[in-house]
């Protein structure tokens, strides 16, 4: 055909961006085939290796449950306590790196080229930032963590702050204010700048190398400045497979644990029996809703669900704020912000600390956890962030979500702590967090102390479930894109496969045991990913320098 010649070669976008010249063509390693009625377009070998290794690990956890539990149960705490300094320092590097980018001239680089316009408006974009990984955590830890730090009798008080309770559970009035202040600071530390900086680094790298440099939307692309053409070979395969692996197991184990939590909540409020059958039904239900959402696509599915969830979560936040006394809680927020600003340096310094229970058991654990989720959350954020400048991107992914998280913790944690102080003998939060540790009930216990507990607890359960749906949904999109070699137009059956696969893995682990051990394994992948993330910072810097030189 005559038009073949005119289509040859790739015209450079005029001055808009600095496209990396590479011989690699997106999809060149893909297998396009038809199995029965199902069309497939998968990356060879990432799709197969990651699929098979997931099956192998599930089989191992089911066949040798004790051994798996012993091994991963040993590995995870060993890594987080041996490398606590490494996790803490790296997280600090990510925060500083992002803050420097905001003020540096590189902040003016626009993701997608100079002329690009944002794909999504602010409300939809913000909603989706929380949809992938953070929303579900806010529901689970919003009450638990501040209440725990406030009253912990297990010797892991942040920075060794004084305890507000005696051995017999009597309140020590003199210690209350300091314990309360530190509880909010320590919680905010885990949910504000540091986790969002981790996500921002991965997301920025992927957005930059994909939208500006024209490389496929896949984790390996971020390594182009370091590995060069080798990213298309086995180096890249390993990076992508590791990302798929961490994402899938992270999602499947969270789905399993989440089903147990939702079941515990239903049991606490409605007396629904707490057993495997109910939990399997919950997983099936969550996966089914996620499937519908996946089939409706990014705009029709996950975006709409995230927006609905943000509105409902905001209403719940406002309700708790006013029901628990807006004046007290808002002053709590101000105190929390101030305490966070004051304590962030001592909390993030890994050396010479005596509160190893807190630093290794909570902080290093959290950092490993956020980092093991970062390929997934980062890639999803990248997918929806085209058209923003680097400065705008980091401000909106780092600063604003941090403030939202601190507010959330101040409202939910603050009202829980107020309840513990006002009624130290009868407080349901104290009974379920401090006296006997049932973390999954903490949110419902706090809502119990406020009016309309029946309604708000139901809303709480719905929020938990919908946040799981959006996680499962966005996770399937991410895994599908990586295993299709960066293609975002792979056939529908593929994403259905991944979404269903997640549900099946969760059910298998729930019935056969092994959720805990594989979750520990996922968190252990945080260590290699930390090294990967540090390299990515360097890659981003190099990429931005070239972008400014060449446009």
């Amino acid at each position, binding site marked *: 055909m*005559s038009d073949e010649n005119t*289509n040859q070669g790739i*015209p450079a*976008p005029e001055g*808009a961006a600095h496209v990396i010249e590479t011989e690699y063509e997106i999809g060149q390693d893909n297998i396009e085939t038809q199995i029965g*009625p199902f069309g497939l377009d998968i990356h060879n070998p990432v799709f197969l290796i990651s699929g098979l290794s997931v099956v192998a690990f599930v089989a191992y956890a089911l066949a040798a449950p004790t051994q798996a539990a012993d091994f991963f149960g040993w590995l995870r705490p060993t890594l987080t306590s041996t490398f606590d300094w490494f996790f803490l320092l790296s997280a600090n590097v990510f925060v500083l790196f992002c803050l420097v980018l905001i003020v540096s001239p590189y902040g003016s680089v626009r993701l*997608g080229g100079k002329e690009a316009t944002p794909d999504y408006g602010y409300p939809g974009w913000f909603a989706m930032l929380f949809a992938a990984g953070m929303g579900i955590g806010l529901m689970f830890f919003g009450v638990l963590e501040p209440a725990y730090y406030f009253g912990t009798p297990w010797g892991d008080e942040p920075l060794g702050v004084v305890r507000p309770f005696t051995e017999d559970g009597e309140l020590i009035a003199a210690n209350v204010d300091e314990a309360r202040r530190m509880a909010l600071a320590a919680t905010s530390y885990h949910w504000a700048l540091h986790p969002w900086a981790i996500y921002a680094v991965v997301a920025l790298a992927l957005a930059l190398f994909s939208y500006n440099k024209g490389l496929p939307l896949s984790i390996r692309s971020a390594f182009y400045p370091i590995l060069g053409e080798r990213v298309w070979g086995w180096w890249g395969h390993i990076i992508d497979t590791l990302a798929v692996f961490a994402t899938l197991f992270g999602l499947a184990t969270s789905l399993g644990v989440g089903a147990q939590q939702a079941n515990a909540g239903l049991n606490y409020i409605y007396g629904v029996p707490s057993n495997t059958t109910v939990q399997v039904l919950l997983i099936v239900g969550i996966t089914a809703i996620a499937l519908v959402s996946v089939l409706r*696509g990014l705009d029709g599915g996950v975006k709409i669900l995230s927006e609905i969830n943000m509105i409902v979560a905001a209403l719940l936040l406002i309700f708790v704020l006013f029901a628990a006394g807006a004046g007290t809680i808002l002053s709590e927020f101000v105190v929390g912000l101030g305490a966070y600003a004051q304590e962030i340096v001592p909390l993030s310094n890994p050396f010479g600390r005596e509160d190893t229970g807190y630093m290794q058991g909570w902080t290093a654990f959290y950092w490993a956890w956020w980092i093991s989720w970062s390929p997934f959350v980062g890639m999803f954020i990248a997918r929806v962030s085209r058209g923003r400048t680097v400065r705008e991107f980091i401000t909106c992914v780092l600063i604003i979500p941090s403030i939202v998280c601190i507010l959330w913790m101040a409202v939910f944690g603050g009202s829980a702590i107020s309840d513990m102080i006002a009624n130290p003998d009868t407080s349901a939060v104290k009974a379920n967090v401090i006296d006997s540790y049932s973390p999954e009930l903490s949110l419902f216990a706090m809502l119990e102390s406020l009016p309309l507990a029946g309604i708000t607890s139901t809303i709480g359960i719905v929020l938990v479930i919908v946040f799981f749906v959006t996680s499962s949904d966005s996770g399937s999109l991410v895994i599908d894109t990586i295993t299709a070699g960066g293609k975002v137009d792979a056939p*529908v059956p593929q994403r259905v496969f991944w979404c269903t696969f997640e549900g099946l893995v969760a059910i298998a682990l729930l019935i056969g045991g092994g959720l805990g051990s594989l979750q520990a394994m996922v968190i252990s992948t945080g260590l290699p990913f930390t090294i990967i993330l540090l390299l990515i910072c360097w890659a981003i810097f190099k990429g931005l320098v070239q972008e400014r030189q060449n446009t």
Partner: protein
Amino acid sequence: MLVPVDLAHKERLSRALDCAADLAGHYGIPATYVGVTSTTPSKMAHNPEEFGQKLKAFAEAEAGRHGIEAQTYVAIAHDPTTEVDDALMRAVSETGADLVVMASHVPDVMDYIWPSNGGKLAEHARCSVLVVRP
């Protein structure tokens, strides 16, 4: 008249393209070639601007080959796997087209579960849709 094209598979579209060109030539109406692309890099193009240039080159080639008047329209889908139909629907309403000429795929059992692009467009678009068998 709108002619949706998939630049990655244009060899499979020849019958629909010939049909569209024939109609355009016969009635002396311009053909608007519509391409759906994502904002992320794909096999076809690194970014939407580049996709637009390729689509333009394609349309000019068609115009030259059949002696018709050709225009282009780039529709952007954030999630092309599932949102091609919606992007095409937007293209139909924004251009105010009277007719869509597009290729079909070989119907199979999956069509009962997931409607094809042509099928969905024929069902929901406000204009006539001519689906050409390959």
